[in-house]
């Protein structure tokens, strides 16, 4: 509707539009499933304070998105033996952006940590699958999650070399 406000830098703007046409009914669902709500209200792997974040020593970190577009994610990872053993994050964005970052941080650190090469293969779809059904419009938010993760890993690999 308001073209003007459509975020030009959004990587999945087109995708959103397609989805919109495909399933307008579901699109209008603004409320989330239990899992999303749980991760939104009880986000895992976050910092308690800004200071904690500032003082955190990460092996790799990265930030993606832009506040003007309404979504920014920052991710910090610690890597041990090629596996992600810690994953901290900050998110500026809607509930599903927050929840999807939270669940992503759980996915990559559970069971002793995910191998870096597996983590690099993670897609938005994987996150959405784990979250349970999400309004199509909200896919966008989880796309940023895997981007942030990949960027953080890249930063780690760059630092390492």
């Amino acid at each position: 509707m308001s073209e003007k406000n459509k975020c030009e830098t959004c990587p999945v703007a087109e995708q959103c539009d397609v989805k919109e046409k495909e399933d307008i009914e579901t699109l209008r669902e603004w409320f989330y499933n239990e899992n999303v709500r749980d991760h939104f209200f009880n986000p895992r792997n976050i910092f308690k304070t800004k200071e904690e974040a500032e003082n955190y020593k990460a092996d790799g970190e990265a930030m993606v998105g832009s506040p003007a577009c309404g979504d920014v994610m920052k991710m910090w990872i610690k890597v041990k033996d090629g596996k992600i053993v810690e994953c901290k994050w900050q998110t500026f964005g809607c509930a599903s952006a927050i929840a999807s970052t939270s669940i992503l941080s759980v996915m990559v650190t559970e069971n002793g940590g995910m191998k870096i090469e597996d983590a690099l293969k993670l897609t938005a779809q994987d996150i959405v699958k784990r979250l349970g059904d999400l309004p199509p419009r909200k896919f966008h938010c989880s796309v940023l999650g895997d981007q942030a993760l990949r960027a953080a890993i890249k930063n780690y690999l760059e630092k390492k070399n």
Partner: protein
Amino acid sequence: METRDIYLDHAATTYVLPEVKSAMDPYFCERFGNPSAFNSKGLKAKGALRNARKTVAELINALPLEVYFVGSGTESDNLAIKGVARANKEKGRHIITCKIEHHAVLDSCKALEKDGYEVTYLDVDKYGQIRLNDLKKAIRNDTILITIMYANNEIGTIEPIKEISKIAKEKGILFHTDACQAGGQLSIDVKELGVDLMTLNGSKLYGPKGIGLLYVRDGVKIEPIIHGGGQEKGLRSGTENIPSIVGFAKALELAQTSKDEESKRLILLRDKLKKGLLEIPKTLLNGHPTERLPNNLNIAFADVEGESIILRLDALGIYVSTGSACTSKTLEASYVVTATGMPDEIAHGSVRFSLGHRTTEEDIDYVLDVLPKIIEELRNMSPVEVDLEKILEEWNKNE
């Protein structure tokens, strides 16, 4: 934690007041006739219709024959804009509106653009008011209609209606105002305002949904957008919705007769909320500091996104909104807030608190109790730290 029931979304829609409901009740099962039917059942319905029209006409200082009942505020806006445009196209095809109108107005204008009309969308200043000079400059020989809202639904800013109508009158241009948000709180005397057409609806002033009104000054040329049996003097066909019309009249009456007292009460509560919320660091007031609806407060919380705030409040039983209800799509910053010159990143953190009949001081205290903590927690989780000085600088450019 205990869950409250604190409704601070009166600008989205209101509950129906018990007195209004009682006024409507008899018209569903008993006094149910069709006013156009030529029998006593119809006559009674016609009587109710006439009384409602008379009540409304008196409240807005118009003649009953200038009052048209329609199906919603949106329909009223559409009828006013398209109806006047089509009926006066021989005179010209240029319309002036502004960028922060409701979608009912904006999209009616856009529909007309497709039909070959030209529309000027005026900018607004940092507080959301149009500049009268812009308006004067925008007027052309073929301008047939100016449509500027009485008060904005998101940021609560009241537009300079009397000044606009003076300019319109001088130039002989028709002037329509969308008064949906104002009807329950401000004076809506059409003579005093000087408007030629005015839109109201029930769902914002404790009346029923699905009912709207268009005031059309006697003599204004206008065409229907819905054709049929010829009800409402042919301007809006369809069996008259008597229960809702009766309810609307009652609601408008209650709102208008209690507005001075209620406004005072709401302003006190709202200003308490404003003071408390602006004490939170990195917050800004959206909309006009004084020329605003008594019940509206719109605050931008830097570094956090509106939806998160809303959901956190919702979980505690506090119901607020970001922008307008119709466009509550989180990917887009409010077009109203950004039109005031607020950068997108801070527009994303704007939250509207709209107070009303059921709002108590206890409600306000509770919000002030819980919201600072929520903002703090969300900010802790946020990687964004905007420079408020720079934001203000940019915003102030839109003097």
